[in-house]
């Protein structure tokens, strides 16, 4: 196919509004354009934060200072964590693929409140830029870790307030997106689309949105209280004034544990779309997957104490939180088994999206089981705040949510831009990513078990082997990331035309042209059967 071909219809990408060029994008309330704007912004922030991650790895190639001093290192992991958590993964999938595809998947022309949607993006950008500022405006970059634990965060003389305000504003952007999605799902499903005829990605977004609405305000007020402690001397967390530092940890994790499900639920939703398409087979256990999303959201709200097992909380409190932590693992297990059964008996085509989705299962299993290790009281005592935790969450966040993002972008890229990327390069990039990933993070489990604490600028010599291997992994990983990004950027302009349905998918987005027109559907579709109904397409073979 020649790469100069052009699709004929007018898509949302070419559509001219009141303004042209950049301004046209910045004032557009089209959910797809907003989704893309999120994607571009998040990619840039991801690269910046990933570069910081790489710097940490280089620093740790040998004990003692190598490329930076301790103060810089502390700033680097803080900003790495803050950007990755608050700017990349919390909004990540929901804001990008949620915005791009939620309305299409439920047969709507846009989200319920398009202007509010654009406003959320601006809030997001404000917060994100404020976060970046904390690096540069006078004084030192914040050095508290992304968890902002008091009393240190109330005392540190660095730009902590900037980072706190950034997180606060980003929180509100996230709340508004969640609110928008809940109303959209309630009010704008196409005629005939009952709750149980809705695709599963919207289900996971629905569960996510509720956590966003009900958990985020708590961290908002908590960060405000830390700001008040720094600026106004209101010492809720200051032991010298009778305050309670552990109370901060409760409040922080009441949000930040559910936040990890804000990250992983949409990721699970994305791969749930991918498995049926590439197996040409309905999803196995539709109801179980839908309900397990809700179950994860509900139970996941009440397990926050597992981050505080060593902080001196009461014996029974530890007991209870550990118990609930194990309960949430079960719905995750249900999902994994249902994905496997979806593939079983199908007609599998191992295209890049499926490759990423399968490797997600592998990485998520490792991340999940090490999560269980952390959730058990006895083993948490040993592993808490060691490199073991660092490996756990990189496996589950980068391996879960990151790989879901890669899977999703390879899945929906032809729909978003109407063009196809090179499978060959996508597969090679995957090889580097997957290999690099495991080489980078697996050694951290081992040195973690040997007692290597996290947030350590320096370390004892016995941990060096692990650190060196890990650093090598980071370099392999980078190669993969660069290949993947270049492949996609090249395809964006030069790729072959993809056509409306390159994967023979059956959900609504594959029934409209690629890229979709401005209002998605000329005519709102009427839904008559299950979302993953392959009956007709398959008879041709």
């Amino acid at each position: 196919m020649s790469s100069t071909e052009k699709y004929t219809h007018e898509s949302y990408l070419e559509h001219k509004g009141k303004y042209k060029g950049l301004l046209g994008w910045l004032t557009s309330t089209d959910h797809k354009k907003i989704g893309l704007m999120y994607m571009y912004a998040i990619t840039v922030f991801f690269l910046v934060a990933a570069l910081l991650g790489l710097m940490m790895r280089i620093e740790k190639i040998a004990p003692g200072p190598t490329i930076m001093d301790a103060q810089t290192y502390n700033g680097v992991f803080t900003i790495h964590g803050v950007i990755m958590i608050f700017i990349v993964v919390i909004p990540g999938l929901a804001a990008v693929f949620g915005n791009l595809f939620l309305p299409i998947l439920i047969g709507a022309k846009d989200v319920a409140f398009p202007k509010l949607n654009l406003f959320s993006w601006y809030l997001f950008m404000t917060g994100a830029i404020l976060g970046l500022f904390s690096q540069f405006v006078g004084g030192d970059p914040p050095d508290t870790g992304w968890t902002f634990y008091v009393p240190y965060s109330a005392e540190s003389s660095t730009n902590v307030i900037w980072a706190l305000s950034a997180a606060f504003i980003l929180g509100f952007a996230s709340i508004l997106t969640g609110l928008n999605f809940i109303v959209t799902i309630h009010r704008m499903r196409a005629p005939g689309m009952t709750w149980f005829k809705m695709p599963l990605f919207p289900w996971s977004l629905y569960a996510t949105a509720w956590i966003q609405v009900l958990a985020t305000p708590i961290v908002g007020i908590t960060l405000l209280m830390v700001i008040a402690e720094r600026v106004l001397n209101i010492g809720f967390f200051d032991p010298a004034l009778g305050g309670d530092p552990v109370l901060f940890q409760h409040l922080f994790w009441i949000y930040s544990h559910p936040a990890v499900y804000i990250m992983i639920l949409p990721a699970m939703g994305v791969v749930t779309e991918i498995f049926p398409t590439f197996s040409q087979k309905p999803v196995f256990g539709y109801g179980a997957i839908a309900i397990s999303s809700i179950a994860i959201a509900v139970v996941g709200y009440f397990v926050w104490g597992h981050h505080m097992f060593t902080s001196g909380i009461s014996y029974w409190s530890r007991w209870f939180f550990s118990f609930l932590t194990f309960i949430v693992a079960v719905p995750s297990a249900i999902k994994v088994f249902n994905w496997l059964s979806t593939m079983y008996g199908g007609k599998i085509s191992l295209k890049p999206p499926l490759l990423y989705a399968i490797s997600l299962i592998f990485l998520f299993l490792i991340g999940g089981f090490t999560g269980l290790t952390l959730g058990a009281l006895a083993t948490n005592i040993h592993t808490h705040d060691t490199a073991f935790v660092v490996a756990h969450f990189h496996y589950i966040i980068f391996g879960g949510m990151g790989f879901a993002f890669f899977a999703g972008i390879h899945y929906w890229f032809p729909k978003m831009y109407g063009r196809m990327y090179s499978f060959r390069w996508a597969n090679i990039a995957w090889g580097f990513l997957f290999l690099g990933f495991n080489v980078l993070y697996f050694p951290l489990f081992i040195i973690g078990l040997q007692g290597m604490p996290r947030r350590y600028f320096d370390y004892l010599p016995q941990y060096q082997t692990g650190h060196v291997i890990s650093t090598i992994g980071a370099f392999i990983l980078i190669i993969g990331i660069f290949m993947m990004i270049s492949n996609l950027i090249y395809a964006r302009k030069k790729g072959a035309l993809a056509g409306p349905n390159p994967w023979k998918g059956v959900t609504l987005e594959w029934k409209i042209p690629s890229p979709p027109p401005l209002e998605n559907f000329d005519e709102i579709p009427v839904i008559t059967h299950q979302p993953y109904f392959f009956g007709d397409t398959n008879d041709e073979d």
Partner: protein
Amino acid sequence: MSTHPTHNEHHDPEGSKIGMWLFIFTELFLFGGLFLVYAVFRNKYSAEFHHAAEELNAFIGTMNTVVLLVSSMTVAMSVTAIQKGNSKKAIGLLILTVLAALIFMVNKYFEWSHKFEFNLYPGSDVVKGLDHGEILFYGLYYMMTGLHALHVLIGLVLLIIVIVRLKSGRITKDHYSLHENSGLYWHLVDLIWIFLFPLLYLIT
């Protein structure tokens, strides 16, 4: 701001109402965080909380409660009025509400400035000399009433916008979503005060 003449926000009062309720939930949890802090410290320092609460002026507090309750009723009535198509009456009732809100703020102003006169503010020498529980009580007092006052102000702005739109005829019998939702917001302000009042002023 929309980029396309046909790309209009679709009109769905029920949807907007759900949206407003969701927003109210986030506000409740925002204050919920403070209530949790209150509960923990109140449990730890009950005697000091007792003692510090006695310093607050329960009379002003009671007055403000009454003012807010009345304003809540006038808002609710104004919604009834617009539903019946009587926008004059609706405007009148909203003006009463705005007046009530102003009275509330004036009271608050006097209450706070009175405290400041006695150097009772966080970080002041007087407060630093108090017991731990009392310091925390005052911290909570300022944080909670301050955040609440901020919400009163936001509500005030919303109500004024509604009045303007009622005057210009953009809010009508069939199109009063904004009016209803601003009303909901105002009730939220009232709802929060209903809990703040006994917890801060009455636990003596």
